[in-house]
């Protein structure tokens, strides 16, 4: 059966990064199941099923959130705090995918419960490799959280 479910929420404000990330995911046939949120507010609307995403259900969370940190309106750490602070979304795997590896970003992300933290490499081959591995690991190798883990 073809998986129609959404698998990845990509939270990324920069369209060039969106293109490059989708490119990498496409090579693993993972690009069809991607929803892109262009700022932190849109990401939160999507994850918390409100605003233009009011029709979504908490029972069908994305299998993976790829989260940039520097975002307009609501930044990535604030998104992470909201997701990991709410029993309805806490079990969703969130991977920070960002430009910097400043210690305070790393420390704060882990403190908030991030599942992995990846600094986007400047070299495209390395970036592509990282995105591919991420996609494969979280969507193929890893067992996703069962529905019961999203109930308070």
């Amino acid at each position, binding site marked *: 059966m073809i998986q129609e479910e959404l698998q990845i929420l990509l939270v990324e404000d920069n369209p060039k990064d969106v293109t*490059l990330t989708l490119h990498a995911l496409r090579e693993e046939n993972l690009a069809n199941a991607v929803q892109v949120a262009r700022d932190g507010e849109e990401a939160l609307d999507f994850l918390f099923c409100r605003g233009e995403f009011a029709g979504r259900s908490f029972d069908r969370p994305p299998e993976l959130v790829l989260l940039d940190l520097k975002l307009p309106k609501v930044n990535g750490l604030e998104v992470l705090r909201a997701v990991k602070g709410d029993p309805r979304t806490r079990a969703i795997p969130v991977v920070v995918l960002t430009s910097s590896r*400043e210690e305070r970003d790393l420390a704060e992300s882990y403190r908030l419960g991030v599942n992995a933290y990846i600094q986007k490499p400047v070299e495209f081959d390395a970036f592509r490799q990282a995105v591919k591995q991420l996609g494969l690991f979280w969507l193929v190798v890893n067992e996703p959280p069962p529905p019961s883990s999203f109930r308070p």
Partner: protein
Amino acid sequence: MNANLERRVAQRTTELEAANKELEAFTYSVSHDLRAPLRHVDGFSKLLVEKQQAELSPEAQEYVATIRESVLQMGTLIDDLLHLARVGRKQLDVQATGLNSLVEEVMADLKRANPDRLIEWKVETLPFVECDHALMKQVFVNLLSNAVKFTRPRNPAIIEVGATDQDGARAVFVRDNGVGFSMRYVNKLFGVFQRLHRTEDFEGTGVGLATVQRIIHKHGGRVWAEAELDMGATFYFTLGSSDDPATEKRTGSGGNT
């Protein structure tokens, strides 16, 4: 009189804190914002070559390869500068550290990264010292990878790490039989962006030794070097209070003209 002095100290402290905050915001922004466009240049150059290979002449492909090389170089430069800035504002986390284990770790990484090189490593027993483990590892990463880099024309390369007494203080040294440098330029050695070799001969950003010096100074020690052109180089450092300020000045970051 006293109150006046206190007020001035408080004011200066506030000013310093503001400057420090601004600097921190600056490096934070650099680390986030400066790398993104580089990533895009490299990514789209690579896609161009992959998608349009048939239409691109060999010359054009060569140009794109050069573009990507420069991008990666700038990426390294940014990373090194950020690292230097971080060292500057990091609080020392001092603990008793066996320098031999640090050297072993760094050596293992360098061996892995240079499988084709024939290098004779001679590591003596080194002291246990009070230092910041992570920063001291950076010192050895920089000194030992320099030694590996600048012995590239040697077969075998010989790299020694040991301890010696210098004016009553215990100094650690890293010696190699590499290309060395002329002592005429020794005052530029530890300056940021200062390089004593051409990039086409030996790659580098000119930040490594500046980082070493900053770390050693933060530990209250001093660092200096002796070398001869084509006859190898020896780098020394001490930790703890520097009892010879004159030498400190000689190897300071002066000469940044």
